[in-house]
């Protein structure tokens, strides 16, 4: 017997990363801006998307959504009410979406006919951070009910995001939400990240959020 060390130097998620790179090239060729929305369960990803899809459509933009959950198509039905094309991905127990699931569920969709594609990830602030879906922008959501220290508790996710949305701002006062502290904590983990403060219920902050989407779409492919 001889002992040998074999250098492998391979990414563990190489298969996912390769698929994600293919998807990214595909999105860029189609000219569609793809966003991956991540948060805890119950932060309001679906509510933000409902309002976003409706407003984008009202402005003549073509937007679609893929929505991930362990079970049920409840979210897809909610989002489909906006009139946008929506597909549900049921992971049946898997705690995150991966590039293979995205590729499979995009089958038959004409991406070139879209301006925006939103991917609503499974509600989880841990596992989805490891899986690239080929998105251009990863948006992390934090609601005023969750505690201002969420970014410090989940630095991996907050550090990997490109933009943050603080949701449910309409009930911030009732929750005793310390806005300055939340902004400071986000900035401590991801310095300089764009932060939006919204209420999907009242529409507060939506204009700035939609403005950001438009700005990113125009600059797409960068």
């Amino acid at each position, binding site marked *: 017997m*001889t002992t040998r060390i*074999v250098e492998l130097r391979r*990414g563990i998620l*190489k298969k996912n990363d390769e698929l994600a790179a293919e998807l990214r090239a595909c999105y860029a060729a189609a000219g569609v801006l793809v966003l991956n929305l991540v948060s805890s369960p119950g932060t309001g990803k679906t509510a933000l998307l409902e309002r976003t899809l409706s407003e984008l459509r009202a402005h003549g933009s073509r937007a679609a959504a893929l929505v991930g959950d362990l079970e049920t198509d409840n979210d897809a039905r909610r989002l489909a009410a906006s009139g946008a094309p929506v597909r549900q991905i049921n992971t049946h127990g898997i705690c995150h979406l991966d590039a293979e699931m995205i590729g499979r569920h995009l089958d038959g969709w004409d991406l070139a006919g879209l301006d925006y594609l939103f991917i609503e990830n499974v509600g989880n602030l841990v596992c989805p951070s490891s899986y690239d879906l080929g998105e251009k922008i990863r948006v992390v959501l934090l609601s005023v009910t969750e505690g201002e220290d969420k970014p410090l508790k989940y*630095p991996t996710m907050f550090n990997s995001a490109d933009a943050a949305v603080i949701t449910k701002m309409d009930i911030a006062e009732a929750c005793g939400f310390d806005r300055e502290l939340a902004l400071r904590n986000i900035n401590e*983990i991801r310095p300089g990240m764009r932060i939006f403060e919204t209420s999907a219920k009242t529409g507060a902050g939506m204009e700035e959020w939609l403005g950001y989407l438009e700005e990113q779409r125009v600059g797409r492919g960068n």
Partner: protein
Amino acid sequence: MHELSIVASVVDTVTESLAAYKGAQVVEVRLRVGALAGVVVDSLEFCWGIATEGTALEGSKLVVKTLPVVMHCEKCGRDVELEGVQSFRCPNCGELCGDLRQGRELEIDSIEIDELEEAV
């Protein structure tokens, strides 16, 4: 809790690479995991026995090297190592740093195998 699928992916990759070393026994599998990889090392170790059972990796040892976060500090003009992931401030000057240079690694570094003499 995606560590089991990560470990399963390690087992697949190592198994594929063993094709070139027929009859070899895997002694050790060495990973490099960044502090921001989003993976719990204890969970990887917990899953290892289950995931390797009945494979060529059964009985092997998993060794995980954790890599600290390294940021580039504009103000200091050099790369700096962070002590934790609670604040992305330069430990020297206190400036917030956004330029990540190390910390998201999630890779198989190397494997140690015992080969049969005739296969050498």
